[in-house]
């Protein structure tokens, strides 16, 4: 295979990892909980979109199905926080971790029960088309993945740095108590962050399912995205994206250059190296937590 094509497909995979990692970091920064079901959120968002738009199912127009799926996953994240996680306030972090792991199992099981276990792909307007740049032939879906990721990143950047709600989210994650003192409704903001986590997961799922097939256990690649978040520093949004890109790019090249088996270890090997040599991650914003 052409190296450039390897690069592009790695980049597209990396975008999906990056978006899942972004979800991890968003929720972690705002609530100090790690959502180990983030990968399964992604899978579920993909299946909802497939269910809405594929001709075997409801056959709704793709451009309507996408925002509806994003909305459903956003509502799911919001309600999850309001109905369950908020009630666990004061319990140990481990309890939340176990809860999200269990939630991952439930989502995988539910997706399997509803949509069966065979891999399915999303009937998107990009599927199977090509873009030609001179000599170069690229899959339109891969180009779209990269493009949408850039767009979403930019939108999130504007949201967090320009909007009142986005800045309040940052404030609540930097100093929760002070946010309370300023009258910022911290609990509602945390629920909204879970909603945002759901929306971003849905986008990642839609991107994933439009460039390849997805099945209910695909959500397990959340572990790779977790490694990406760790590489990026687990507190940094751009770090998470770049961590995802690194893993996405290393994978195909490792598979190309290394004996089979080793390539699968590559993401975790990089994570270990980062943890050993830069324990705070590549892009950590250094800030000591006050006691």
């Amino acid at each position, binding site marked *: 295979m052409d190296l450039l094509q390897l690069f592009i497909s790695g980049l597209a995979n990396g975008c999906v990892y990056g978006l899942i990692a972004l979800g991890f970091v968003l929720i972690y920064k705002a609530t100090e909980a790690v959502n180990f079901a983030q990968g399964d959120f992604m899978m579920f968002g993909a299946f909802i979109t497939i269910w809405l738009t594929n001709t075997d199912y409801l056959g709704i127009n793709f451009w309507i199905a996408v925002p509806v799926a994003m909305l459903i996953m956003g509502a799911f994240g919001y309600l999850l926080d309001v109905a369950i996680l908020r009630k666990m306030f004061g319990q140990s972090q481990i309890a939340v971790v176990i809860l999200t792991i269990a939630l991952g199992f439930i989502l995988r099981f539910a997706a399997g029960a509803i949509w069966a276990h065979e891999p399915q792909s999303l009937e998107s307007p990009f599927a199977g088309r090509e873009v030609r740049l001179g000599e170069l032939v690229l899959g339109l879906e891969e180009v779209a993945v990269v493009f949408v990721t850039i767009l979403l990143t930019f939108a999130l950047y504007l949201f967090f740095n320009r909007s009142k709600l986005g*800045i309040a989210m*940052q404030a609540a994650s*930097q*100093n929760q108590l*002070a946010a309370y*003192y*300023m*009258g910022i*409704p911290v609990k509602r903001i945390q629920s909204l962050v879970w909603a945002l986590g759901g929306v971003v997961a849905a986008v990642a799922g839609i991107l994933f399912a439009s460039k390849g097939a997805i099945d209910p256990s695909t959500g397990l690649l959340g572990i790779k995205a977790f490694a990406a978040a760790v590489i990026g520093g687990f507190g940094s949004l751009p770090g998470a994206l770049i961590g995802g890109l690194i893993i996405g790019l290393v994978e195909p090249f490792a598979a190309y250059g290394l004996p089979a088996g080793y390539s699968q270890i590559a993401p975790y090997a990089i994570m270990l190296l980062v943890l050993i040599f830069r324990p705070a991650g590549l892009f950590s914003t250094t*800030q000591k937590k006050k006691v």
Partner: protein
Amino acid sequence: MTEPVLKVDNLESYYGPIMAIRGVSLEVRQGQIVTVLGANGAGKTTLLKTVSGVMTPAKGTILLNGEPIHGAEADAVVRKGMVHVPEGREIFPLLSVGENVALGAYVRTDKAQIARDLEMVYSYFPILAERQNQRAGTLSGGQQQMLAIGRGLMAAPKVMLLDEPSLGLSPLLVEEIFTIIRRLNKEQQVTMMLVEQNAKVALDVADYGYVMEIGRIVMADTAPALESSKDVQSFYLGVQEETQRGQRRWKQRKTWR
């Protein structure tokens, strides 16, 4: 006499099984600066947290302009016109100074008035205007205290709860900050409840004062009366009395026990 702006009655607050506030009653009147003095661990911070709705009281009532606010969420209390400037500054370190100040107005929507208040805050604290685009975490301690007060002002409070604004500041800076506190009270009509360990500066700006010990109010009087009280002098102002024999009294009894 006018009705008090803030009226606290028989308040009790707990940290789990520990009773930190044991039946506190106090009043703050319009335009006053009322100070609450007390040693470490007396429960001053807990009192302010309970009043501002960050903690829920187990018993007692809190009236703000005659309206009950005990048990209300902190954001509802801010909306009703009372803001808490916490102990130890508690700024948002990674946001810019300007963003920190703007967040003080989070509960407000009156854009034009917010813009005027922003100018007012920057006129009291020109250093904040100068450092608008700098990360708040990089400010010095005194500047962070100014930021915390400025941010609180942006809520357009009728009552401001100030928790140890002198904490960790040099005498010169304490002087500067208290001058501004006095000006805000006079010029902007901000009523204040001021918690302090530095009894001297607090009594100098205050109209009325309470002394707190292990969760209870043990003395209440006008600021000048407290300043001249023997107990406050020896325990909070560090004035040492000479006895007839010319020795320092090393064993004292507080008259309130």
